[in-house]
Each structure stands twice: as C-alpha cells, then as structure tokens.
C-alpha cells in the first residue's frame, strides 16, 4: 500500500503528540496535580496510530485503559482530553471519568475502559447496530494481551464470527498483563492463533511498525466493510513504563526494557522517512516541538478551566 507523504507526516505527528501527552501526564502526576492513577502507552504509539489510520469517518472505536494515543490518533480535542485527565468540567466527561474513561461517544470513540476486556462484548452490539443500519461502517475494538484471557473475549469473538459482524479486534500485545508475561498467561505463542477457534482470520504484526499495522488493519477493515465478517489483528509491541503509577517493575529486567526502547516506533518511522528523503531532520524536530507545544497549550486550557460544580454531582446517572 502506498501512502502519501503528508499522511505519513500526520501519523508521525500523532505519535509525537501521544508521546508528548504522556510525558506531560507523568510530569503532572509528579507535581501532584493528578489524583488517582494512569496507564501510559509510551512505546506503543505505532499500534494505536497505525490502526486508527485505517478507519474512516463514521467508524467506531472501543478503547482501553491505555488509551491516550488511541484518542490522539482518533483526533480527540487535546484541550478537552487534558481537561478530563485533570478532572475539569471542560473535560470530555465533565471530570467524572478521568484518564481511564475518556470518551467521545458522539464522535465515535466509545470510551476508554477500566474493566479489562469490558469493551469487547460492546463491540458485538456495535456490530449489530451497523448491520441493522446496513451502512459500511466498521468497529475497531482495542484490548490487551491480558484481556484475551477473559471469558468476554471468547464469547464476543464467537458471536461476531457467527453473525459476520463488521468488527476488527485489535490486540495490543505489549507482552504483559500487569506483571504477567504472556508466556505464563497462555500456552500458545500467538494470540492471533485464537482466531481460528472462531473461524475468523488472525494475523500477528510488528506493532512497532506503523505501516505494517496500517496494512494489516486495513485488510481486516476491507473484509469487514465487504460483509465478510470480523478479524483479529495482533500488534506485537511493548510498554516502556510500569503498568500504572504503582509499579516497581519487579517482573522484568532493565535489559529487556532497554532492548525494546531501542525499537522506538517513533524513531523508527521518522528514520525511515528521513532515509527515503521525504522528511528532513529539521522538519522532524519541528513536528516534535509542535507536539510538545500543543500539549503545553492543552495544559494551560485545562489549568484555566473550572472544577466541576459540586451541586451538579447527581446529574447524569439517568436520562431525564
């Protein structure tokens, strides 16, 4: 698949922006501005960006707890994202959701998710809606390697397959579910092998190669739009940071982390583009700087926006 220069520059920008968001998130946390926890996806940017690059306007996305870059790639408003992250009234969820639950349902991003695997059954329902409407929309459902061991995964893939629903199941396999290495969590080598049990195609790709992810998800989406049913795409990648803020990394070695940090998906993609002569180092630096500035201005927006009014606390449980 050939992708034009500007589109690829856009992907690079998205990856840098996701990274910058999370670097800032860490900083804000260290400053005590953030209450609670957060899950960083640094090192996994190509998986989110390559996947979402393959969808089109009107498609649906179901995200995960590790969803910041998914949101950035989806095109979320950085100001409202940051405001939600900081629990402000101007945030996507009025400050009620926080990092783990940022959602833009009207736009098609049906929410980050605090229950591991909790979003997978939802994708079946989204698929039914699309089938009922007879549109060519599709649904991308993200989840982790750990989530593939919940019953929800198995029930949902089976239902999606028998009804040929237009869903692409995207497993962001970062090798660990919290402290558990995938080798201890399942007796097979590849999560994509599980697709066979449900009669759908499964493929494993280098999840740090944004182009490879784009192509694999693109193929799966083509099938889905053509009414040929769901697929499972496994993006092999790695999270650089701890599982959440309370993680001493006791379950893995510094060497392993260092090895994966050398496979930085951003440096890799940028390097390729520079080598091909479609991007200069100076342009790349500018993109990185722009990303940081966009995030800084989002923080300014969030800082300036008001706290939710306590008198509204009961609002929004039911449709009135």
């Amino acid at each position, binding site marked *: 698949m050939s992708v034009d220069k500007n589109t690829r520059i856009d992907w690079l920008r998205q990856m840098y922006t996701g990274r910058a968001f999370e670097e800032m998130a860490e900083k804000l946390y260290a400053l005590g501005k*953030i*209450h*609670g*926890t957060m899950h960083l996806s640094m090192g996994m940017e190509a998986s989110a960006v390559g996947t979402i690059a393959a969808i089109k306007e009107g498609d649906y996305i179901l995200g995960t707890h590790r969803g910041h870059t998914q949101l950035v790639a989806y095109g979320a408003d950085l100001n409202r994202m940051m405001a939600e992250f900081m*629990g*402000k009234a101007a945030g996507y*969820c009025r*400050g*009620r*959701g*926080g990092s*783990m*639950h940022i959602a833009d349902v009207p736009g098609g991003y049906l929410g980050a998710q*605090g*229950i*591991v*695997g*909790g979003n997978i059954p939802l994708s079946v329902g989204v698929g039914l809606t699309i089938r009922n409407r007879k549109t060519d929309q599709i649904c991308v459902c993200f989840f982790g390697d*750990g*989530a593939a*061991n*919940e*019953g*929800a995964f198995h029930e949902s893939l089976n239902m999606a397959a028998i009804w040929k629903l237009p869903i692409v199941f995207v497993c962001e396999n970062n090798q660990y*579910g*919290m*402290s*558990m290495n995938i080798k*201890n*969590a*399942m007796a097979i080598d590849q999560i994509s092998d599980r697709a066979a049990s449900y009669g759908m195609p499964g493929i494993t790709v280098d999840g740090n190669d944004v182009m490879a992810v784009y192509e694999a998800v693109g193929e799966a989406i083509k099938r889905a739009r053509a009414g040929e049913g769901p697929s499972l795409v496994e993006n092999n990648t790695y999270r650089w940071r701890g599982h959440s803020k*309370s*993680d001493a990394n*006791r*379950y893995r070695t510094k060497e392993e982390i260092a090895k994966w940090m050398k496979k930085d998906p951003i440096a890799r993609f940028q390097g390729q583009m520079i080598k091909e002569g479609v991007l200069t180092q100076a342009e790349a630096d500018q993109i990185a700087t722009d990303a940081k500035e966009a995030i800084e201005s989002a923080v300014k927006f969030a800082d300036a926006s008001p*706290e*939710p009014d*306590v008198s509204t*606390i*009961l609002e929004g*449980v039911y449709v009135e």
Partner: protein
Amino acid sequence: MRELTFLEAIREAMVQEMRRDESVFLIGEDIGVYGGAFGVSLGMLDEFGPERVIDTPISELGIGGAITGAAMTGMRPIGEIMFMDFMTLALDQLVNQAAKLRFMFGGTTKVPFMMRAPIGSGAGAAAQHSQSLENWYVHVPGLKVVMPTTPYDAKGLLIASIRDDNPVIFFEPKLLYKKAKGPVPEELYEIPLGVADVKRKGKDVSIIATGMMVPRSLEAAEALAEEGLDIVVIDPRTLRPLDEETIVKSVMKTGRVLIVHEACKTGGYGGELAAVIAESQAFDYLDAPIVRLAGKDIPIPYNRTLEYNAVPQVENIVAEARKLAKGNV
C-alpha cells in the same frame, strides 16, 4: 504489643495460616512477584512458591470457579480479586455455585474458601475501581460477608474466615491498608464471625458504621465529645451473619441510631440494619426516626472534589449525629 498496618496484619494472617495448614493457598492476579496491586502478598511467593501463591491470567470467573472446585474437594483456598469491582466478573461462580452447592446437594458438600478484595473510593480511581457492592453478597444465602476496619480485627477475622467451612467474602477497605496501624498479637487468634465490636462506648447516639465509615465515625465522635455529646460507635465487622443483639442492646440504651455506610443508599446494607432495629424490641425505645447516612446514588466520580462529596465524610457524620442527638431530625 508491636504494631502492624492493616495490610501487614492481613499478610501475616495468610502467611501464618499457610504455614500451619497445607491445604491453604492463595490465588489471584499479580499476587506473586508483583505482590498484589496494593502489595498485600509481597514476599509470599518467595516463601511458598508458585504452587501455593498462584498468579492467574486475567480471568476472574476462573478464579471464582477454581476456589470453589478446590474447596469442594478438600482445599481451603484464598482467592484474591484485585478490586471488588471485578468480582462482578466472578459472580456466577460465587452466587450460582459456591453459595448454593451445599444446600442444593443436600448437605453433602461444603465450600470452605474465602475471597478477598479491596473495597471503596477515595483513591481517584473513578467509577469502575471504587465501588462498595458488599450488600450484593449479603443478599445471597450461603455466603458470609466480613469487613474489618482495624489491623487487630483484620488478622483475627481473616484467620476465622479461612477456617470457616463456608464461602466467606472478605472486604478490605483500601484506604486503610497503609493508614490504619495498631497492636496485633504475633500468635494466631480467631475473632469469631458474627460478633460486632463496640468501638466506642457512649449514651447519646448509637452510630452503626461499616468499612471506612468506622474510623470516620470515631473521629466524628471525638469531635462531638468536645460538644459534650457521648456517641457510641459499633462496627458489625461481619455483615452476614449479623450480630443483632449488640446493636439492639445499644439502641435500647441510646434511643437514637445513625447508620453510616459508604455504599449507595438505595438498596444498601443500611436498609437491612434499619429493618433489623425496627423489627426488634428496640423499636419501642426509639426517640427519633432511624437515620441513614450513605453514599450518594451515583457511580463514583473521578474528580477529587466530586469523589469526596460522593460518600460520607467526618463532617457529614458530625452534622447528622449532632442533629439526632439534639432531637432535630
């Protein structure tokens, strides 16, 4: 006596029971090298190895079933669920299997497991990691439900829960893990299930509180003492079976009762407590309506201020107890 934190008391109880009884084992997510999400089981893998400190994949239903099946066949497993919110994923095994097998099979089996899980809000973890759904379990015959609030109680109740021949659900108020510290005997001891503890004696109002609301009520009682009010604080400790006698006796003495829990008010445990009191001989002694102070009927919000306002705090307890004591209800 040496002092332990709430978390250390729980860990010590598990370790000592596992040393004493080979049939006890711990199973859950990230309880091995990681030491559990809150560090409760830190170091236990080193002592007992991976066959008795079993890390599972992210499969709560599997954990619920594994402890049920193991318990039916002679083991005394301790299942850990990382947050009580995720017990909903194990509910089928707990409710349709564990709780009913003995009765359904005519008394020919027993299911002596315990399942532990942290409970409650206040950590900024939002709606899917902050719930207090203890009353769901109270409603199921066959299950016992325990929720300690001091290190001393935690150790004694945990040991009794392991040794109990029934499935016991054991909730650990997560804000207490590191914050609550107190004297804990080094030896093994049991606190029987179904016995409440009067945490503070008094005569003006009986506060019956559970979980995090116990330390908050005690703090409120101290504040009210300065105003000359003498408040009783009772911690049922075991929600099912409930020690009705201790509660009824206290209410007969004070004639005024304030029930405080963190869970949402509608359908919460406070309704059960209120009904127990209203149905008892204490009814005739009531000088005021029974008052419930509970969490608002909303999911727990992320924003710090909203989260704070979603559940009772010390100042709310002070205000309610004061009103009640002064007959302004």
